[in-house]
């Protein structure tokens, strides 16, 4: 039996093993396909310094938010889900629990109107963001591991990603998923500051 004829079997064997392992982890609750899409969890949030949508002569820099808990919302005017979640974001912004930073992404490299569209969007629909960065070349979205807008990240005071929500955010999801974590982080940072 020549080895090269065994090769396909070995490759598929490795695939099976991976599948079996994942399935095993799913059943034990160690793996959740929704969370796996955010490999950044518990890791430092990628930094960026990008021009601001509201005023393109200024910059939005993630380092400015170090030391406070904030939310990064990835969106684009081309994204239907973003329009759907927009009223919820406005409502969340009104609560003033944490600042929401926007990251406006383009649909693809041929999309040349996004910046103008985004400005129009914010002025017409209302602006829930303290600042919105314009991701002109799509690098920031790639760094942040964005699968598809809208996605919403919770970043803790040390600049670590604490949670990620995929898809349109609702006020309910905010209350259930984000608010308890924010309170936990705040409590934790008080406890953590003791030593």
């Amino acid at each position, binding site marked *: *039996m*020549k080895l090269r*004829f*065994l090769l*396909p*079997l070995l490759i*598929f*064997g490795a*695939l*099976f093993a*991976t*599948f*079996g*392992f*994942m*399935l095993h*982890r*799913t*059943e034990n609750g160690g*793996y959740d*396909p*929704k969370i*796996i*899409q955010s*490999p*950044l969890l518990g*890791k430092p949030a990628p930094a960026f310094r990008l021009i601001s949508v509201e005023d393109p002569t200024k910059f939005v820099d993630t380092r400015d938010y170090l030391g406070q808990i904030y939310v990064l919302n990835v969106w684009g*005017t*081309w994204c*239907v889900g973003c*329009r*759907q979640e927009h*009223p919820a974001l406005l409502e969340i912004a009104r609560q003033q629990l944490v600042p929401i930073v926007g990251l406006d992404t383009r*649909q*693809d490299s*041929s*999309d040349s*109107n996004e910046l103008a*569209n985004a400005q*129009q*969007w914010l002025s*017409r*629909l209302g602006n829930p963001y303290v600042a919105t960065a314009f991701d002109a070349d*799509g690098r920031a*979205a*790639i*760094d*942040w*591991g*964005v*699968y*598809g807008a809208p996605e919403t990240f919770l970043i803790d005071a040390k600049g670590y990603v604490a949670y990620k929500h*995929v898809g349109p955010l609702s006020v309910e999801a905010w209350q259930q998923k984000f608010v308890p974590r924010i309170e936990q982080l705040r409590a934790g940072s008080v406890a953590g500051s003791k030593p």
Partner: protein
Amino acid sequence: MIVELGHFALILALCMATAQAFFGLAGAQMRHTQWMSAVRPAVAGQFVLVALSFACLVYAFEQNDFSVLYVASTSNSELPAIYRFTAVWGAHEGSMLLWMLVHVTWSMAVAAFSKQLPHGLISRVLGVMGLLSVGYALFILLTSNPFERLIPAAADGRDLNPLLQDPAFLIHPPMLYLGYVGMAVPFAFAIAALLEGKLDSAWARWVRPWTNVAWMFLTIGITLGSWWAYYELGWGGWWFWDPSENAPFMPWLVSTALIHSLAVTEKRGLFKSWTLLLAIFPFSLSLLGTFIVRSGLLTSVHSFASDPKRGLFILGFLAICVAGALLLYAWRAPHFRSDAGFAGASRESFILINNALLIVAAAIVLIGTMFPFFIDAFDLPKVSVGEPWFDAMILLPAVPLLVLLAIGMRASWKHADLSKQRLSLTVGITVGVALAILLPAALYGYSSVLTSVGIACGAWIAISALWDPISRWRNGHTVSVAVLGMSIAHLGVAMFVLGVAVTKSYSDDRDITLAPGESAKVGIYDVRFVKIGDAPGPNYDAVEGEVIVEQDGKHIATLHPQKRFYRVQRNVLTEAGILAGWHRHISVSMGESLGGSGAWSMRLMYRPLLRFVWLGAMFMAFGGFVAALDRRYRKVTVRADEPLATSTAPVN
């Protein structure tokens, strides 16, 4: 009562499938003629039983029998009759029954159109198909039974997912399954050849039409899915690299390689063990794709109710089928020897590179789809694998594939002297380059090198594809049906490439707010929002906009985009208003109502040459079908000692 009958028929079908598998495989192994003669009746019996079972489920849906759990969870008494029928495959359980029905239909077809095949071979082929049937039936009965009762019965059903309440849902899943499941036929033929230890040109000639037809259905299924996602989801895109799109795309890529490799095996007696491996792959990847989509390990737009038990069953089934097949392959394939060699420059070489590139493409799709797994399993550094990654990576195999296709079609078998093809190649390249310059300059404006390469390749491939039939026809020769089919399919590739290059580069999207009476520009068109009104539906309430599309003040079309609210599932669906045409699509979808002034946020999309993307794919499918009609696939009768290039491996 009818429901229990359906359940019972499915259990009987399982018994019949067991008999089919046993008589087919054991009969051929032990050369037991009577056992082998029992195979075809077993196939027929199984077909009748599964069809009966399916009909019973359809009946339960038509009768709104909400004492059946599956009916109660996917249908509703307000649902229009046609969607009550399609709701049969509207969720996991019923779609598996459809899958099985399609499988036994293929088995029936193979049994019916194989009279000229050697008794032993066809018994083994049908035996393997029977074995697969056993797996499907067990899967349905043990983990996904659509006949399960709900006691007490529900007052009304939970309704079909609104996304699926669309005419396209009537044909998309059956077509896709015909393709997916049809890949079991070349799979079964490959297993049979490995068991027999015999593979010759005749074998390749028998497999080719089956592969072509299954491939045609897969192509149509994928195309319909893409088209449907475009107009129903209203995202403006036609391909999202979603796991449920990648699942059928992987077997498509590999079966495309198989179609080409089979040609070499038939014509030249080469690539035998490679062809066998390729025949095993599409079906394996079909099962793998099903596993990915249905086990719930990846999130996707098609969210089937996920259940790890089902995942475990499919994984086990996958392991038995694929590992069994590959083990058999590793044992037997080294005995298959090629009949002849071939020169470096020859059609064989081009097809070999074509195969390699298609496999690379399939591997890229597989890796990209599985990436979230790998990250978790091996704790890899975080990398985002989404649409941009796929779009960029797929170009690596795609661009050389297209260039080599344009040249390779002009190469002859065995030893190709490409200098003799100088005229056709020069014309092809010249027209390609000219078009790549003129088309953007005249119509669209310069975009990028990639756009030009795409347009040039499209034109060159079209010329290469048409050169042969046209020159033969001009010289008074007849063009064989197989060659005609090949030319049509490759012309389809050209149209597809042209469509993708132009629509990817020159699309225009506008997100704007319009009040009645206002208008906006998208591409070269003016879109005017006239008014908004109510448009009630059978199980939803909708508001409908009236939008007029104009060009230089001239009326082009009136569109009616809708925003629907489905009463039972309580969700909102956007139905885009689409103006389709040869040179462009215009689509208007409504976002949100913005206050009392009647203003709405809207998304306007302009998509040049979008139709060519789907039309190209349909040409490919049609070409594959035409090629399968070639006379030589039907006229051949076989004698035991066929003098064709034969190689016999020692059977231990």
